[in-house]
């Protein structure tokens, strides 16, 4: 990812407190290029996480021992919160409740602190003590292999598909690239692209900042940002006439109902769910019920065995026939 270092310098570091910013901006390029997360925790070492490892950061660059690292201060955290919220905590209350903010460039900042609870629900997060800056990476081409399996050439239809993987397995990256490929209609589709609707409850797929997608999701794509999935899917069906609906991390009863509605309305659905195997997913009451109805024509399993986004297996939904398996060397 040649752009990662530039993105961190241009988009993420201006939002860090000055002392932390100075440290991050002076990191060697080869480290910035592979950086996945920058972690700030109150009175604890500043850490960056990169593919396959992590580094403690001292005032003059990476250090070996945690005690030599720069300890993140209260002031750093307060300032960082001000900067990522553009001095407007009031404008990001909903995001703060969810525990994350999206910043320009589509990067996400995860937050932890003290939750103020009212009526059993989180009212707001206060006294923020941890920040996790997750660098958004767009892997263009990540969905090409999968697209060949979920596109029905005869009918020209995208098949209903469910992407399953453990966290950090590359689900969102795959969904994003599928949205882009289907929307633009290049390559495998051999025809004009399709209208794609993304219901992006956690602003992860399109990485919207103030409603505008920061990542490339194709030019025939409409994004409903930060919208609850069930409501968003219904809204899409009513007013945006999508041919394909893409959504992330389904699992609630409402989501399932809305997905059924979309499928019966003749719209292709591509969704994702946490899990590492079919058995595991089937044990979850809501997901198990959905899978038993055989709505999904393709089940796509990812893992991070050979790096994030390793395509493990693709199963034909109804009969459970494997169409692709990494262990057996491909198709």
């Amino acid at each position, binding site marked *: 990812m040649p752009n990662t270092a530039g993105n961190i310098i241009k988009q993420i570091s201006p939002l860090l407190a000055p002392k932390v910013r100075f440290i991050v901006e002076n990191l060697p390029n080869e480290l910035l290029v592979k950086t996945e997360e920058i972690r700030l925790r109150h009175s604890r070492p500043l850490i960056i996480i990169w593919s396959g490892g992590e580094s403690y950061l001292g005032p003059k660059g990476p250090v070996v021992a945690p005690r030599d690292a720069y300890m993140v201060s209260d002031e750093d955290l307060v300032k960082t919160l001000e*900067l990522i919220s553009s*001095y*407007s*905590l009031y*404008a990001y209350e909903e995001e703060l409740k969810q525990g994350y903010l999206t910043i320009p460039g589509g990067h996400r900042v995860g937050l932890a602190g003290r939750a103020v609870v009212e009526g059993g629900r989180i009212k707001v997060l206060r006294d923020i003590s941890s920040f996790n800056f997750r660098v958004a990476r767009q892997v263009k081409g990540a969905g090409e292999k999968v697209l060949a399996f979920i596109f029905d050439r005869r009918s020209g239809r995208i098949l209903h598909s469910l992407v399953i993987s453990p966290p950090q397995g590359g689900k969102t990256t795959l969904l994003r690239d599928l949205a882009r490929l289907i929307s633009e209609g290049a390559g495998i589709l051999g025809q004009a692209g399709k209208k794609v609707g993304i219901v992006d409850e956690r602003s992860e797929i399109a990485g919207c900042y103030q409603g505008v997608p920061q990542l490339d999701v194709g030019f025939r794509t409409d994004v409903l940002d930060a919208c609850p999935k069930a409501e968003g899917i219904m809204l899409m069906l009513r007013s945006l006439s999508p041919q394909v609906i893409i959504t992330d991390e389904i699992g609630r009863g409402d989501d399932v109902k809305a997905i059924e509605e979309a499928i019966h309305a003749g719209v292709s659905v591509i969704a994702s769910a946490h899990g590492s195997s079919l058995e595991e997913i089937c044990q979850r009451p809501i997901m198990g019920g959905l899978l038993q109805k055989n709505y999904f024509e393709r089940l796509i399993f990812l893992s991070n065995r050979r790096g994030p986004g390793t395509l493990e297996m693709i199963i034909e939904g109804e009969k459970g026939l494997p169409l692709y398996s990494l262990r057996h060397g491909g198709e």
Partner: protein
Amino acid sequence: MYFKLLGASLIVFAAYTYGYNISSMYQKRVLQLKELLLALEMLLAEVNYGLTPLPRAFINVGKKLKKPVGTVFSEAATLMLKSKGLSAQECWKKALERNCDALQLSRNGMELVDRLGLVWGQCDKSGQLKQIALIQELLRQALEEAENEYHKNDKIWKYLGLLGGLTMVIFLL
């Protein structure tokens, strides 16, 4: 004789202008406090209905207000958008410092405006609204005082300037 008359009228004019300037300072103070109250009213709407992020809200407010109050908001917004790692309070303070000569506020008024810097961006919506409302209340009191002072001092300073000038002329002649 003509020179004397010319000199005398210059003295009277200068003394009157001095008195007029002091009285217009009281007038400007009132107008600027009114502008500030208007700004806070607009910000309340931006926060409450638009959930507009602060730099954007400051730009909107700055455009609609007269100088120098509008300039303070615009400059604070510019500093925020420059991403130099400054806090909202620091941006506000710098914008105030740059315009403090043009602001004709009393010490109490300046303190209030300075305190506004602490209000920005630290709270959730209801907290932000309450803090703006509190400063509004304090500014209203300051406005009342400033208006009283203006009514009290306006004519005094104008007459004092004129009469002072005339007295000086009489003594000199």
